């Protein structure tokens, strides 16, 4: 990939940053280096009033990126510290946006972090679970960001719904009384959004180093690919420069 100006993880961070709006309030979860980079980059570019809060700290100023996110090391300084008590409230009222990752991500954007195969208490593979499942349902929208674009991750239907996307489509989604939901899924290969009518994930753009065929071969469900698929717009010089000098000076996203 050395002929491209950025790494896949940097591409993901830039794609997410572009989608965040000025004045919004949002947070990432744990293990969220790419979402943290996206939020920091958005603040440095078009969204100086982006508020990062909802997970026990307000407007962190990390001096470098870390794989973890919910620790003092990864926060750097911040404007205020909250506790799980306040997270309880944020979880109910929701945020403008949140980020999810999953062991399984399905065609309707449902996220599984609990088990693959078997049953919950007799699983073939047990995952970590999820600290906070509420933001998926209470936030205005969420992003899916994963470092694995494979048929193992992108499955037709999650074995267990840890955090709900659009469940089994419009009928079940509306019947459950859900609002919000996944809006964009970024991977090392491509960006996907969701068809407003069917609420199914669909291919939006393919990163320059990948191809529609590669994406299809690594996705376990139909991505509704039309005649022409956009190529993902690479980071601008300004985006990349800010990302590398101000957000990720140690190059975590290039490893």
């Amino acid at each position, binding site marked *: 990939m050395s002929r491209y100006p950025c790494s896949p993880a940097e591409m993901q961070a830039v794609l997410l940053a572009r989608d965040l709006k000025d004045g919004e309030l949002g947070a990432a979860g*744990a*293990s969220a280096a790419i979402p943290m980079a996206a939020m920091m980059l958005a603040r440095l570019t078009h969204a100086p009033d982006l508020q990062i809060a909802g997970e*026990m*700290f307000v407007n962190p100023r990390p*001096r470098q990126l870390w*794989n*973890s996110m*919910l*620790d*003092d*090391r990864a*926060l*750097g300084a*911040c404007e205020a*510290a909250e*506790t*799980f*008590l306040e*997270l*309880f409230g944020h*979880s*109910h009222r929701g945020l403008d946006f949140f980020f999810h990752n999953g062991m399984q991500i399905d065609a309707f954007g449902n996220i599984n*972090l*609990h088990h693959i195969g078997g049953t*919950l*208490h*007799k*699983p*073939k*593979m*047990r*995952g*970590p*679970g*999820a*600290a*906070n*499942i*509420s933001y*998926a*349902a*209470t936030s205005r929208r969420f992003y899916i960001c994963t470092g694995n674009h494979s048929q193992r991750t992108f499955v037709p239907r999650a074995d*267990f*719904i*840890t*955090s*709900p996307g659009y*469940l089994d489509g419009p009928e079940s*989604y509306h019947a*459950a*009384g*859900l609002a919000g939901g996944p809006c964009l899924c970024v991977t090392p290969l491509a960006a996907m959004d969701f068809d407003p009518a069917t609420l199914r994930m669909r291919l939006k753009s393919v990163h320059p180093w990948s191809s529609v065929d590669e994406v299809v071969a690594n996705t376990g469900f139909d991505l509704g690919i039309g005649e022409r698929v956009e190529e993902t717009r690479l980071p601008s010089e300004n985006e990349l420069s800010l990302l590398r000098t101000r957000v990720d000076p140690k190059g975590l996203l290039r490893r």
Partner: protein
Amino acid sequence: MTAPSQRPQKLVAPDAVGGLIRAWLDDGDLLAIGGLFKQGRPMVLVREVIRSGRNRLKLVSSPGSGFDADLMIAAGCVAETFLPAVTLEDRMCPTFRSAVENGAITAHCVDALSIVGGYLAAANGVTFQPVAAWVGSDVPKHNPLIARIDCPFTGQPLYATQAIRPKLALLHAQEGDVYGNVRHLSTMTYADQMMARAAEKVIVSVDRIVDTETIVARPRETTIPCIYVDAIVEAAYGAHPTGSFPLYSIDEDHIEMYATLAEAARKGEAGADTALRAYLDRHVHHALTQQAYVESVGGAQRMKALEEEAASL
């Protein structure tokens, strides 16, 4: 005419902690561990629990757990977990994973709101906390801590999560005084304050004991007042290998070393079980003092490096 103050101290000697744990925690009891993911874990107390021989424990924590839970499961102390997320963040918790997959433990399906709500209810002195969330998730379908309830004002159906009252909570902070007033210097304080208020008994390890006058000088910074603390013990680097910010950072190398051993054991690799036992012997069963433990994980030089990392943040 004034008698000198005879206010009893809650500071206990390190070698008294094992006895307190055995006195306050029975086999099968609910044990709460402070901190979050790889920070603020009272590891010096967790190792005492392992050495105490208590087993069939039920584990609860803040919503994010990892190393401490995996170690206790590896040591055979745990029967059930009520832990929303169990992860080392960079990788999964190997022993937790294998113990659930082979049926050795029951990992209950809970999330942050049921755990935090449970502490909140217990701290508030009521039997439940209302929760209006969880739509669409499979988690509430399996969560043993919750029930449906109707709001008496709106008629709206919602959930109730039941009060969680751990038999014993083990917490770690940077500073405390001899009477049990505790002060976190870290930016994050996790669910430690709620757990202290929810639990029947509370033992806190602190990196250093400070004079009560420094506590009194800044009362708003006392994170856990003495009235909630039953015993406090001084243990420099007591959170290692988890971080105790701003004093010392997370020892990722040590956690990675452990995780590699545990992952090999999970996969059934030859000799891996023995190697994991050897880890436990070296760092838990044979490291009977905090000083011996610190020596076993790299001594003063390693601690200095972690202090420098924390200071550079």
